[in-house]
């Protein structure tokens, strides 16, 4: 039995068919199905952790691969499951290559230090300063390059209906654009966020391939500027309100309990259970103020942005939509973060499970691709994977 998707709820307002098309396209809605079980995922994850301890972390390439195999194959679109065919050794080779890159860079920095700064009268910083500064400078762009290359690796190892997926475009080009846009955004007080969001989403969407089938993206930053400016100014107001509320709350607590700053230091250094509870309560209150005002606002914007990006993407005659709400975005961004943090990482499979369920529940697909038109691609994708991504530790699965 194929896990066919029976829409449990009514699909959201679908994207309108392209005007002027003479024939009426098939827009039957369907949803992805995720039928993984949390317990099974945990069994794989805990085995991975135990192996990590035995191998001092070197088994992570194989562990990650097993987890991906599980997650990919339990997700299906139009009744056809994804297949993950990556291998642990490919990830390890990618990691070792990235390690070589870093080693080469360290060597270069050592030479620069030796010939430019070492024992010179104007030398005011040491080798370590030079190295950490250079890592910050190249690390930022490289994180984007690594992100794109990692996406390419994962897609090239993903099959659907036996057809390999892939990612065209240049990771270095993406890294350059991303670095430039993020820098420009920071310089302008984050007023360019819609431009950055749309222009970083576009290369990732239009370069994605399922076999020979590409995707198109019709989003424009102008469409979302109105909402963003609203968010931008509400955000400023919320920060001010949160700061005032926090100050009043903390000031009030200290006064009512009659603490001096000296008592405070003493309590901090030798925490009794009582102090720990008080500190936790204050932290919780601060979080509450912050969480109530700032984070929902951010989730409101992020949910809007995601809805916009999804509905403006298409693959030939297949359209996409999502009605993801602010509250669901909160569960994705904030709750998931808290779960991982509070469980010291042990909640990670739970977060993965929740995320897959969210995708399955919130993504709508209109129409079906014409299978006979999509052909197996000729290229096989990169031979190894994710080295840079692994280096900067941002890859998740």
């Amino acid at each position, binding site marked *: 039995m194929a896990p066919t998707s029976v829409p449990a709820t009514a699909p959201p307002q679908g994207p309108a068919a392209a005007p002027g098309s003479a024939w009426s396209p098939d827009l039957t809605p369907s949803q992805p199905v995720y039928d993984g079980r949390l317990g099974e995922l945990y069994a794989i994850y805990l*085995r991975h952790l135990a192996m990590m301890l035995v191998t001092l*972390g070197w088994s992570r390439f194989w562990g990650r691969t097993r987890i991906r195999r599980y997650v990919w194959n339990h997700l299906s679109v139009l009744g056809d499951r994804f297949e993950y065919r990556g291998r642990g050794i490919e990830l390890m080779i990618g990691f070792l290559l990235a390690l070589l890159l870093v080693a080469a860079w360290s060597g270069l920095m050592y030479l620069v230090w030796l010939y430019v700064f070492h024992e010179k009268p104007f030398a005011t910083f040491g080798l370590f300063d030079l190295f950490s500064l250079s890592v910050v400078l190249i690390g930022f762009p490289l994180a984007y390059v690594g992100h794109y290359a990692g996406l390419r690796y994962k897609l090239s190892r993903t099959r659907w209906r036996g057809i390999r997926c892939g990612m065209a475009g240049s990771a270095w080009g993406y890294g350059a654009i991303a670095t430039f846009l993020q820098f420009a955004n920071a310089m302008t007080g984050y007023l360019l966020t819609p431009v950055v969001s749309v222009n970083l989403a576009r290369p990732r969407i239009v370069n994605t391939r399922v076999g020979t089938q590409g995707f198109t993206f019709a989003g424009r930053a102008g469409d979302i500027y109105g909402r963003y400016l609203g968010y931008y100014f509400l955000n400023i107001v919320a920060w001010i309100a949160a700061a005032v509320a926090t100050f009043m709350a903390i000031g009030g607590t200290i006064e009512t309990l009659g603490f001096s700053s000296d008592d405070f230091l003493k309590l901090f250094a030798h925490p009794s259970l009582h102090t720990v509870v008080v500190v936790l309560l204050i932290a919780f209150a601060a979080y509450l103020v912050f969480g109530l005002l700032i984070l929902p606002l951010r989730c409101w914007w992020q949910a809007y942005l995601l809805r916009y990006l999804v509905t403006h993407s298409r693959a030939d005659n297949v359209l996409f939509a999502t009605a993801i709400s602010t509250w669901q975005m909160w569960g994705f961004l904030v709750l998931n973060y808290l779960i991982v943090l509070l469980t010291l990482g042990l909640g990670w499979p739970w977060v993965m499970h929740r995320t897959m369920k969210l995708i399955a529940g919130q993504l709508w697909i209109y129409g079906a691709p014409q299978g006979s038109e999509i052909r197996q691609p000729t290229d096989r994708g990169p031979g190894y994977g994710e080295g840079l991504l692994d280096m900067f530790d941002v890859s998740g699965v």
Partner: protein
Amino acid sequence: MAARYYDGVTADVQDVTLKVTSHELLINRSEDSALVARWPVAELVVLGDSHHEAVPPLALRGSEARLVVEDPAWRAQLVSLVPALKPLALEPVKVAPRLGTYSLAIVALVGLFWSAIEYGTEYAVPLLPYTLQAKLGETVLDGLLADKETCQGQAGLAAINRLANDLAREAGYRHEVTVHIVEGGPVNAFTLPGSILVFYSDLITQAKDSSQVAGVLAHEIGHVVHDHPIKGVARAYGIDLLFKVLTGGYSDILSTFGTGGGALLAMRNGRAFEREADATGVRLLEQRGLRADGVSTFFEQMIEKEPSDAASAAGIWSSHPPTRERIEATKRPPTGRPAFSAAEWQALRNVCK
């Protein structure tokens, strides 16, 4: 047996029925029974296994075509006909016992890892080539001294290096100790891997007499002869690794969090190291018949200047034990020969001039 067939050339899906003969798998289209493909049984491969994949695809070796049998009963039947396809339908995982086993294994491994860090460094670190330690120490020293003035008074440096090496030899230490003096404050001294000691000149100028400098020097030699600097590095690295591995290496935030915890543990190690260095320093001075009350009087002087006692106030966050506790532990009568001759002491006080 019904299945889905992907030909590996296009993304077309065909509903097919399967028939197994003695040496072939016959794949027929469901709607008109037309033969789609015949796969030799000997060349069938299962991609993955049913513990990871929900439905492991069936393929012909080297081909991109796929067969997907969703129904577990049919997969089991296929396995009974062709035992080599076993990964298609493995015994289902009993989740609860497996979670229990792995959890126990993880707890045991963390314990093992922990003791390896706690006790292993004690034995493993001395095996580390000394040249490597020295190289590390020199690199750190270079970085530290890059923007500082060092004091170059020949006689003063000779005096403090003489006593340092006397004390180290007294402890049976085989390597040459080098003392550097940095101009200015704070009133402090520290030890780097490779038997490198760094004193700040404020400590020397603010000392009441030579026994205090000798006491602090003996304490630092205590660190040197117990290999504390390199043990500290090894433990910090081990704890960092443990945190990274335990959190699956999945999150920056977590490793930052872990580093905080790791730092706390390093501090705890630090307090044990300080107690050991205090005891060894005093013992070495006494063995050479030198005045050994310098450490405790130095601390008393510090506490007079700063009555709140920073180390005690910092509690669990401090790398040093509470000062009063250290004074009690190192209290000695003001007897014995002075550690520096009058001329040496004079030279040491003028080392920065």
